[in-house]
């Protein structure tokens, strides 16, 4: 991986990136999500896309605070981020996290942060449509069964169902749908700040139930497009002791692998 440019470094040379890659907290700190960040970065670099990250100037969007009910912590975070984004005159943001995507796209504008915000599922689909991403012979996914888990914040929250599926379609794998998918897809259990606390009393964990639904279609790969879904589903698969047979990957990792930029299989 080449060195990543930060927006500050570009600004020092009088440049602004065409695209700001919003890495997000999970993408920056979570060991598993970092792999997604790196895979997506490799794709961007491979295609010579003019992008940069905020690096040390990026901060949590405030999503978990807001969904927990702490509007104050959220708006403080948003205020800081918007000041930085506006100071750098950022126009377009791409992010690998549906939670960051949703809040930047839908909730920041009212607070003065107006940008074109794209989730990487849509961005990858656009690159595929433009013929920039091509996968020779379908990569090494031939004969593999992939099932896609819809992230609530991409799907129901923003009606993005087809883009991730179109991205997976170029892998030449066999796409299988879970019983509950798209609009009826079941949450992984992480949203609404559940990721940051213990479950309320109940008789099962949401991620366990969702993982069972995924395993029912006998996939080789469960594809996700959200770092939190990634954690939840990976934990679910491990809890079922299926981690050898069934792997959970992000769209970016699958595409990077298909392009020979990353090796995950």
């Amino acid at each position, binding site marked *: 991986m080449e060195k990543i440019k930060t927006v500050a470094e570009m600004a020092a040379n009088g440049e602004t990136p065409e695209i700001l890659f919003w890495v997000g*907290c999970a993408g920056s700190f979570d060991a598993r999500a970092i792999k997604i960040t790196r895979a997506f970065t490799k794709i961007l670099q491979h295609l010579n896309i003019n992008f940069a990250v905020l690096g040390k100037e990026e901060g949590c969007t405030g999503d978990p605070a807001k969904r927990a009910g*702490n509007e104050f912590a959220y*708006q403080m975070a948003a205020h800081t981020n918007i000041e930085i984004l506006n100071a750098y005159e950022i126009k377009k943001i791409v992010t690998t996290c549906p939670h960051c995507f949703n809040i930047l796209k*839908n909730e920041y504008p009212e607070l003065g942060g107006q940008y074109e915000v794209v989730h990487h599922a849509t961005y990858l689909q656009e690159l595929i449509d433009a013929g920039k991403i091509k996968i020779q012979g379908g990569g090494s996914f031939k004969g593999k069964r992939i099932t896609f888990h819809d992230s609530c914040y991409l799907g129901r929250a923003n009606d993005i169902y087809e883009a991730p599926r179109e991205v997976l379609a170029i892998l030449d794998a066999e796409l299988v749908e879970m019983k509950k998918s798209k609009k009826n897809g079941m949450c992984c259990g992480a949203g609404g700040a559940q990721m940051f606390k213990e479950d309320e009393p109940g008789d099962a964990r949401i991620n366990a139930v969702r993982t069972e639904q995924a395993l029912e279609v006998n996939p080789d790969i469960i594809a996700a497009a959200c770092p939190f879904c990634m954690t939840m589903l990976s934990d679910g698969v491990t809890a079922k002791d299926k981690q050898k047979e069934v792997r959970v990957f992000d769209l970016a990792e699958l595409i990077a692998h298909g392009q020979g930029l990353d090796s995950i299989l």
Partner: protein
Amino acid sequence: MLLKILQILVFNIIFLSTIYLAFKKAKQIYSNIQLGKAMKKDGSTNERIKNVLLIAFGQQKMFQNILPAILHFCIYVAFIITQIELIEIFIDGAIGSHRLLYHTFDDNHIFHFLYVGTISFIEILSVLAFIATIAFLSRRNLLKLPRFTKPELKGWPTKDANLILLFEIYLIACIFSMNIADQAMHIQEHGEGYGFLISGMIAPALSHLSYTLLHVWERIGWWGHIIGVFGFMLYLPHSKHLHILLAFPNTYFAKLTPKGQLSNLEAVTKEIKIMMNPDTAFAAPTEADATPVKFGAKDVFDLNQKHLLDAYTCTECGRCTSACPANQTGKKLSPRKIMMDTRDRLEEVGKNIQANGGQFVDDQKSLLSYITVEELRACTTCNACVQECPVLINPLDIIMELRRHLILEESNSPEEWNGMFSNIENNSAPWQFSQQDRLKWEEN
């Protein structure tokens, strides 16, 4: 003749008092909804009208699941079309005529054809509605569908649901009694019935009965039906069944922005702006600042009018609850219960205001006396409940307002969340990582 005058009198007295009582109750519901804060309308009116036409009129979202959708549609269409016949029944009752519309145009064959056609169509729909009602009753009481056996339906809500269904059977039975006996009489008088499709098939078999008996039978059917209709009008506002009316305004006022978009609390934005601005941060508070601002919702007054309309619109079908991941995994949260609790509390507040001469007197209760913290904490904000609702109710919005109150007004938060909040505030990440390390992922 005396009997006829008596009937006109009785009808008009019942009719006018029903209208009066129904109007009074409707006004009360309206003013209860007005207790909420004004709602913000986004998007265009055209889009809203489109929602009303597709989702309320066309029942688009019901058709996610085809069988219940068709059954429900039968009852719905039967209900709507029966209103045409009801117009004549009302006129007949008010002035003491008998099938006024039919006899007004006695010599007009085209009109008779239309009249008989309409009543026949209503009869077909009534039979379909009857089948649907039986199916719905068995689904609740024999098949015991999971969404109909959840704890929040124990007691009155289950009775309410069954009562409405039995009521429908009663109305259908009355209207058929009326039509069958009336046609049997018509056969005796004119040698043939009116020609209504279904009652017309049964009437000849009864035409040998005495005219008086048929007449009494017809009157029982007619009066039974109209009293049933009046009863339904009075029962409706107290039941879960208000969706037959409120689905229309509710789909009109539903939000049009993406489901993932939550409102930003303006009061918080204002405070942050004051804090961030060095000129205002240390200035003496002005008069306007002195009014205490409430963050989030503790009671129905703090919700907005759409939330309250949602609560009255909910027919407790439970599609939201069956789709809720928290509920599916045995957690206490049920989005349907959130709606039912909101309505119950709102009714309680309304009665309180009525009993105290238009002023709410603190009853040491709030919406949070109905909804527990445990329920609110279980929500993943996944929007499955919002997606499911056939009439565009948004339980998540109410959950979020209550969550805001818990955190911002009561500092009632699980320890882990407090940690997450302070991490976001201090090091700009929900975990305890330094912002300085945000690019470490680059190093592998």
